[in-house]
């Protein structure tokens, strides 16, 4: 069952109430038209329905989300997928800062570029292994404090003349892995990360997510994979192990 809601002129509180109500009434697909900055869409919702958004959702879309698929035909703003537990987000555009902050599970596919601190403090937990795939470029502090999960950065689009990733990439990283298409200059890396050789297993993980990205956004997977990737992992699971002494 699907339900269409016109978000024009609705305050986020009313809009989200309508969305929650729809799911509680057994609707499986909610179509939101004319979304224009309303925050918290999909916030804290569990289940396996979907939300299709036309327009620009506001900050904290899919925060604490637990299931659901959200497709955005437009750009997303900051903190998309904040502390998300499960589900899929597909953004046919760019996204802002701190995408996937502390996310523990689920997948986020961004067609275009993202802002600062994307993937910050992502974690993995038992069978959960969160994934973010960014098709364009990323700002500084990409994967900061990353404690688990997979970050993939493709650099297929994005602002002319800008590097694929900003400074301090992987600062404080102590778990998980990043795959960045092409070369990353050493000086861009946080001091806790290193570049290592790709293994066959890495290649197959990469293929899996790149082919999904290509499917969602109409790219040719082989084209994307033709260029070698840099694999980044933390030096150490305990980067701050010897920082303190007792009194």
């Amino acid at each position, binding site marked *: 069952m699907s339900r269409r809601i016109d978000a024009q002129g609705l305050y986020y509180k009313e809009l989200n109430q309508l969305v929650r109500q729809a799911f509680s009434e057994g609707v499986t697909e909610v179509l939101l038209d004319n979304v224009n900055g309303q925050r918290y869409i999909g916030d804290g919702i569990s289940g396996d329905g979907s939300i299709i958004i036309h327009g620009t959702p506001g900050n904290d879309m899919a925060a604490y989300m637990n299931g659901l698929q959200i497709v955005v035909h437009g750009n997303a703003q900051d903190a998309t997928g904040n502390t998300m537990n499960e589900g899929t987000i597909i953004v046919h555009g760019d996204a802002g800062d701190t995408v996937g902050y502390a996310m523990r599970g689920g997948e986020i596919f961004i067609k275009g570029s993202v802002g600062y601190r994307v993937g910050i403090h992502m974690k993995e937990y038992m069978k959960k292994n969160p994934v973010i795939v960014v098709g364009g470029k990323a700002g500084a502090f990409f994967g900061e404090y990353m404690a688990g999960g997979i970050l993939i950065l493709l650099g297929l689009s994005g602002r002319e003349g800008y590097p694929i990733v900003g400074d301090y990439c992987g600062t404080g990283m102590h778990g998980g892995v990043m795959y960045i298409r092409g070369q990353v200059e050493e000086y861009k890396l946080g001091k806790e990360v290193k570049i290592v050789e790709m293994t066959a297993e890495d290649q197959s993980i990469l293929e899996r997510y790149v082919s999904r990205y290509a499917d969602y956004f109409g790219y040719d997977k082989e084209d994307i994979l033709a260029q070698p990737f840099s694999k980044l992992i933390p030096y150490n699971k305990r980067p701050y192990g010897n920082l303190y*002494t007792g*009194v």
Partner: protein
Amino acid sequence: MNIDFRTPEYSIHRDGVRCTNCRICVHQCANEAHIWDEKQKKVLADDIKCVNCHRCVLTCPTRALSIGSYPLEFKPNAHWTPHYITSIFKQASSGAMLLAGMGTDKPYPVYWDHLLINASQVTNPSIDPLREPMELKTFLGRKPDSLKIENGKLTEKMPPQLELETPIMFAAMSFGAISLNAMTSLAIAAEKMGTFYNTGEGGLHSSLYKYGKNTIVQVASGRFGVHTDYLWAGSAIEIKIGQGAKPGIGGHLPGEKVGLDVSLTRMIPEGSDAISPAPHHDIYSIEDLRQLIYSLKEATDYSKPVAVKIAAVHNIAAIASGAARAGADIIVIDGFRGGTGAAPLRTRDNVGIPIELALAAVDSRLRSESIRHQVSLVVAGSIRCSSDVIKAIAIGADACYIGSAALMALGCHMCQKCYTGKCNWGIATQNPNLTKRLDPVAGAERAANLLKAWSHEIKEMLGGMGINALESLRGNRLMLRGIGLTEKELSILGVKHAGE
């Protein structure tokens, strides 16, 4: 020859006549300060390992043990006290930052001890709480601007409130920093006494979901264990911005303490470091704080009050005003004496301000802006006894959190070594041989007793003031007088000097 500059802080005295060499102390001391010497067939001691926690003293069946200061003195020097000299030794050998547990032990002024409580004499009668009704009930949460009453019934929809039978709650302490038995003790005690305990930032253990009605769940920068069931599990959600013992600093639970249970509760892999970044990276402003507050309200359908916990720092009044305007229903202010499982020592001892001054400044500011009713104030960090609670409420608090005092009720002896993971009292440790020393049922009984005793004392003092409901004491600073305070201190506290 390489000499280790460390010297013992404490000396272990064993009465040779009383000691039967039963070796109980050897088993009781996780710091391995008592050693069984197989050759001599007797128990020996290594003073340098002792942290003065009294565990062996209290478990020795023949009372053969006592602990004292190690009889070693540096040449007296008012500037270079032993603390600074030995700190330099430690840092010169390790190159590391100094770490400490519990709240600061520095002799900063304790304003509670400079405030005196009023009592009724002649002009209004005092009340006997044993024979007359006395109300401690406290509601925490945003209050509406006005009340609509129709046909004698309240028709105004009240924002969600926490209902407390006594104005004392157990402060945030995470599973990881303290043991599950310690948390369970506090959860049971909170349920028994009609108050709340707080999960801290380490998630909620599956066995504690049943105490949800008496639980405040915390959301901190690391977002450990934060998911929808968790947010729905408690009666309120607390956003932790800062902590009195280490304002501006994040947290770091070392991988050694992340065993299976802690890992399941924090929802991170076993053995991995649990790092809480210093800020929430989605909060760089009051507007961002509002965003997080409302993301939590949205996630729980506006059914629970959202608290914001901030450390008492210089600009606390303006920050609290911002938090109230950002939509916080409760503001928790944690003073610089607040306890911690681990904090960098220099931060613990030098950053932040006393809770008494912070509370007075915040309450005055919110009143002057006419937004005091929009938010409840809870104070933490240094509450030692019932009269501290009374004084806090008279200055303007709605309720208090107790952390260190609650742990002392469970057996903590304030050795300040919580960060070592070797708490001999089974509190600040995850070692099963140590945690089993704390029986949650007995612990709950003690923690509940503490609240019971304090509540009685509070009623007694209220009665003495001629007040029969705690509500009438809130922000009633005329019930306080200062003693030995400067004009400036009196004016910040908003109290007159004794004799005035």
